[in-house]
């Protein structure tokens, strides 16, 4: 009765690096990429794969709760260990607090190489939009999508050749009027998932029990920044 990792293909490079650096030898079941925009389907796919797992005591889920995709998931025989993070970006930044602080600074859209290569991402949407509707409309639509975002941040997780993607992301940020920044990622969270301890940063779901929102949500005790709020009356 051992341990198995079920992980998102989008963070494959980072999970593999964490495995190499920690030296664990658990098998990994990769969940196909491209499902982030369809959280229900992502959830079904994860459940489908979990249903195939037998003779395992612990399943480590290397996922964030992207789009609530983890809700309702269960394993009849194994316990599930799940990072209590809003999405996989937090996993790659190393902590929920760091993610929150960056977000509070300024509306920030994060990207990694995995997202650029594997998911329907902002850049691919922009290219598709230019092709289908012309540059002017594509810019208008992307600005609508990114309303209130002011920064594009590319995470250097040290798991891949980073410099190669920066030309693309910089060009996109310039076109949309976003500032472009790099930030070091961290494998702390992923390594802690592999090695423990599974403290308050993780949800431990016993066999047979479904994942609920209450298991994953983080109580932000420090409260939100109170700031002036000017309503528009119409």
């Amino acid at each position, binding site marked *: 009765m051992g341990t198995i990792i079920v992980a998102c293909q989008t963070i494959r490079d980072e999970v593999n690096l964490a495995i190499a650096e920690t030296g664990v030898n658990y098998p990994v079941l990769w969940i196909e990429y491209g499902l982030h925009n369809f959280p229900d389907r992502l959830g079904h796919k994860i459940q489908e794969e979990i249903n195939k797992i037998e003779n395992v005591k612990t399943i480590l889920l290397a996922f964030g709760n992207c789009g609530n995709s983890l*809700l309702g998931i269960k394993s009849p025989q194994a316990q599930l260990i799940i990072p209590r993070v809003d999405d996989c970006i937090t996993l790659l930044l190393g902590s929920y607090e760091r993610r929150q602080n960056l977000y509070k600074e300024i509306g920030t859209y994060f990207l990694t190489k995995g997202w650029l290569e594997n998911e329907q991402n902002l850049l691919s949407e922009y290219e*598709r939009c230019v092709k289908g509707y012309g540059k002017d409309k*594509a810019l208008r639509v992307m600005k*609508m999508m990114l309303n*209130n975002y002011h920064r594009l941040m590319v995470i250097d997780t040290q798991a891949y050749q980073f410099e190669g993607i920066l030309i693309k992301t910089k060009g996109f940020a310039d076109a949309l009027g976003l500032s472009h920044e790099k930030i070091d990622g961290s494998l702390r969270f992923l390594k802690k998932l592999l090695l423990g301890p599974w403290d308050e940063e993780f949800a431990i779901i016993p066999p047979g029990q479904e994942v609920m929102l209450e298991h994953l949500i983080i109580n932000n005790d420090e409260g*939100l920044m109170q700031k002036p709020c000017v309503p528009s009356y*119409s």
Partner: protein
Amino acid sequence: MGIINNVEEFKARRFLTHAMGKLDEDTVLNLVKQGLEQGVDSLEMINDARAGMEKVGELYDEGKYFLCDLMVGAEIFTDVINLVLKSTNIEPVSIFPPIVFGTVGGDIHDIGKNIMISVLKSKGCRVYDLGVDVPDAAFVEAIKKTGSPVLCLSGLITTAYESMKKIVDLLEKEGLRSKVSVVIGGLVNEAVKNYTGADYWVTDCAKGSDLCFRIIHDHSGKQEIACL
């Protein structure tokens, strides 16, 4: 070519839905302009455009449309509503309190919020829009100030749920909870509704605006409709 009789109008309206589903902006806006010139019911036209948007959503689910197509649809739909608002000069019904709306603290997404506000306005409803990343207390203050029976909380990221829950708790603490229906929208479902303590959850702007409309109507205790 004008819309000359009921049959023509029926055909034009079906064509409007079809063109919306095809994301054919020029045709959609031309049909709406023609319809407005010829006195076609503006709310009916918005409903027809909405039906086209449902088709856009279906095609997205089937993988035939992508996110940028959804956004193009949202833009055309917003343009339709703005055309209607501009041409029909809909006056908000001031005897009813405005609907308080905002994206909760920690979240800055506002596409859905803005579309739903446009739909509400097209029905003559007043909206008190607090914007995005709104502090919890500002919602409660707005309810106190306006006396609104409807509070719409929007959020597209999972961290928004904690803010929604805190706002509902704050309403309770201030003795306002029983007077206000809390509607959450965005990335929400029944589990999120239960967690936050909200009364309703919506993921469809048109259905959400119908719901708000109904709440205001019920709250007014009057037989006539609250807005238009």
